[in-house]
């Protein structure tokens, strides 16, 4: 039901963009903005990958690591959740070169956003692992499984289903925070919009199109996550009898 409504909203958004493109005033900005939108999507995808890897590492480190790893994970999570994504982005962009580490803008952007969202994701992963019913752990112990085996075969698949909805929210956050990379001069959607706004001063059409494009990207992410949620829910009983 929800998915159908979201799909309708996405269709409406896309048709508004199509309708506006018939208007000459809007059409001139479309190619440039679409180019920016592609970079925005690329950053979102790579950033999401970084975030998921970091989240899994940090969550497992915090739960099962030896003391040193545990503290490292906690420090990472608290620092990246406690400061602003923009500050982290600037820190990587301006401060790392002073230590002799030169990364290109795209890498900095993907790292900063991935590390930021990954810190939030770590708590999501940890929560999901902890929420798996105790009996599942006990049963795995009874079957004489080793801890990595237990995690891989029994716990993580179940935790995975529980963590999809919160990850959906985080991915939307990620889509929205990609707009920050424009401030370190990556030519994403926001950057293109600002650039065009400065040269043409056609503020209303440019920013209307940009808002619609972000909306379309966010809605797509939400729909994909909802579908995934439905798929994984099949066959997993969470506290109820099936």
């Amino acid at each position, binding site marked *: 039901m929800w998915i159908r409504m979201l799909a309708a909203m996405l269709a409406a958004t896309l048709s508004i963009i199509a309708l506006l493109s018939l208007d000459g005033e809007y059409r001139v900005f479309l190619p440039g903005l679409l180019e920016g939108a592609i970079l925005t999507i690329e950053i979102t995808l790579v950033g999401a990958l970084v975030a998921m890897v970091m989240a899994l590492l940090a969550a497992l480190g915090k739960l099962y690591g030896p003391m040193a790893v545990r503290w490292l994970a906690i420090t990472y999570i608290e620092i990246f959740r406690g400061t602003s994504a923009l500050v982290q982005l*600037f820190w990587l962009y301006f401060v790392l070169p002073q230590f002799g580490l030169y990364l290109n803008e795209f890498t900095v952007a993907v790292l900063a956003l991935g590390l930021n969202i990954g810190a939030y994701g770590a708590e999501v992963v940890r929560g999901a692992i902890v929420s798996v019913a105790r009996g599942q752990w006990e049963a795995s112990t009874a079957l004489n499984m080793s801890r990595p085996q237990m995690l891989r075969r029994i716990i993580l698949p179940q935790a995975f289903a529980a963590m999809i909805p919160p990850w959906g929210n985080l991915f939307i956050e990620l889509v929205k925070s990609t707009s920050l990379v424009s401030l370190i001069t990556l030519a994403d959607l926001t950057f293109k919009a*600002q650039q065009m706004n400065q040269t043409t001063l056609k503020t209303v059409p440019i920013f209307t199109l940009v808002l619609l494009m972000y909306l379309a990207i966010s809605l797509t992410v939400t729909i994909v996550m909802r579908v995934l949620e439905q798929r994984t829910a099949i066959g997993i009983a969470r506290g109820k009898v099936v």
Partner: protein
Amino acid sequence: MWDWAFTFDIIPVLGQAAIVTVQATALGFLIAAILGLFLASARLASPAAGVAVTIVVELVRSTPLLIQIFFLFFVLPKAGIVLDAFTAGVIAIGLHYAAYCSEVYRAGFESVPRGQWEASIALNLSPWRTFRDIILPQALPPVVPALGNYLIALFKETPLLSAIAVLELMQTAKIIGSDTFRYTEPVTLVGVFFLGMSLVSAGLVRLLESWLQRRY
């Protein structure tokens, strides 16, 4: 690598800017908390308003805050409303978080048992009195922790105001950086300030939460 003398030189300047950051947070959250409550209440008032609020909330939550700040800052003057950067920025942040807060309030309203509404009808209370005297006092305390989370989230988004040249912490750090070619100290100090403030406010919200739990 790290210059302590320079660090102590820039602390007073950054301190000034921190005041602007805190002001923007306070004003922005005031708008968000009040407007959010208004949006959530409108949902209760009529189904048509409910649909309108849902659409607005989804639109605001699905698009980046930075774009919304630009939108207000650049588009409003076209409509003849000229705001300074600080006002435009604070309003944009307030509107953005109002959408999030309205969902929090909605959860609060939904947590009030239906029987409370029915009992108020039985007592012949007007809808307004029911809302003010029966529903609100029960709906608000449980949502305080969630509102606290958004206060911290909002605080951490104030550096975005630097994009429209409001002299808050991030912008000041950037200016110091471009004047002196030393970015390490100012940007790190900004990070430390945010981390410190976030941890302190998280602690305060937790205290408020436990205080409310003991009271209710």
